[in-house]
């Protein structure tokens, strides 16, 4: 076992649990606006997959996101995610998600992330990235584990709780 094997396992499990948790999420369930400050499932899912696309393809690889390229206009979001963080909460309450399209985009993002890690050599995993991040710069391997995979797991927990609020089973296990 080396770093690459470990990272691939962490990523694959994170993606699998997220998609298992999304099973049974209909448009109605995705759009349900919870009370308080919590965000709807639709916005949370879009945030996860768009963030992974941006973090891996944009920041780490520097090749541009799928959302800006082959998936432009096909990611299942009724409007783009704002870059201005002060506009984020409003977007989460307005955005409508096409569940099937968004999950297809998610699958494409996961595939590119996993393919990138599978092909990465030790020098690539050791390359420093994310200078502007808290705790950065850090090696690609640490960034993929601590930021990319961990944000998937955290938000999966949110989606599970939001399904539970609606009387639905969350995680697939």
């Amino acid at each position: 076992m080396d770093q690459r094997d470990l990272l691939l396992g962490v990523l694959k499990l994170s993606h699998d649990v997220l998609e298992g948790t999304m099973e049974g999420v209909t448009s109605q369930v995705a759009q349900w606006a919870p009370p308080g400050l919590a965000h709807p499932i639709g916005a949370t899912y879009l945030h996860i997959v768009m963030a992974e696309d941006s973090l891996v393809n944009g920041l780490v690889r520097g090749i541009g996101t799928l959302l800006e390229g082959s998936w432009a206009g096909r990611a299942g979001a009724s409007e783009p995610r704002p870059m201005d963080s002060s506009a984020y909460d409003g977007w989460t309450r307005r955005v409508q998600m096409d569940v099937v399209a968004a999950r297809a985009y998610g699958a494409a993002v996961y595939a590119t992330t996993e393919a990138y890690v599978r092909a990465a050599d030790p020098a690539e995993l050791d390359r420093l990235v994310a200078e502007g991040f808290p705790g950065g710069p850090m090696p690609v391997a640490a960034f993929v584990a601590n930021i990319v995979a961990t944000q998937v797991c955290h938000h999966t927990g949110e989606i599970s709780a939001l399904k539970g609020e609606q009387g639905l089973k969350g995680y697939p296990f």
Partner: protein
Amino acid sequence: MEVKPIVEALIKRNHEVLETTIADSPAEVLHWVPPGIAHPIAALYAHVVTGEDMMFHKVLMNGQSPLYEGEWATKTGLSENREKPGVSWDQWARRLRMDLAAFREYAHLVQGKVEAYVAAADEAEMARMVTPHIPGRPPVPAAVFITNIMCNHIANHAGEISTLKGLQGLKGYPF
């Protein structure tokens, strides 16, 4: 390349995010019973920390008893112990009461023990095959058990806790 730095950073980050998400949540926030089938924050926090105690001692420490069954049995700040693995914890989750200050003392001890174990481990220990506590799961290297089972478990439930705070109008994660 060594896997230990990844394991060490991941478990530490998960502890930090969990602890800063719980922060100093007041008792009424911890015990608020959400609608539907979601669980209160106190039960989630108790589940995730006692789960880590159990996984660490039973799986990584070769069948040792968790602290909550031993020297900490009466000191965790929980009104009752967690349900056994495999038993539904829906009713327990709604009954449980937590003394947060006492429980966090226990939580920090558990988290410290796990971090100290990883800090002291060499690559051979990280590659040692261990058998997960979940029936039917095949043996995996200790590093995989920690990152895929323990860290995922902590992160998933930290996400739930963040949402349950948000549902009560409070900020969840610290970031």
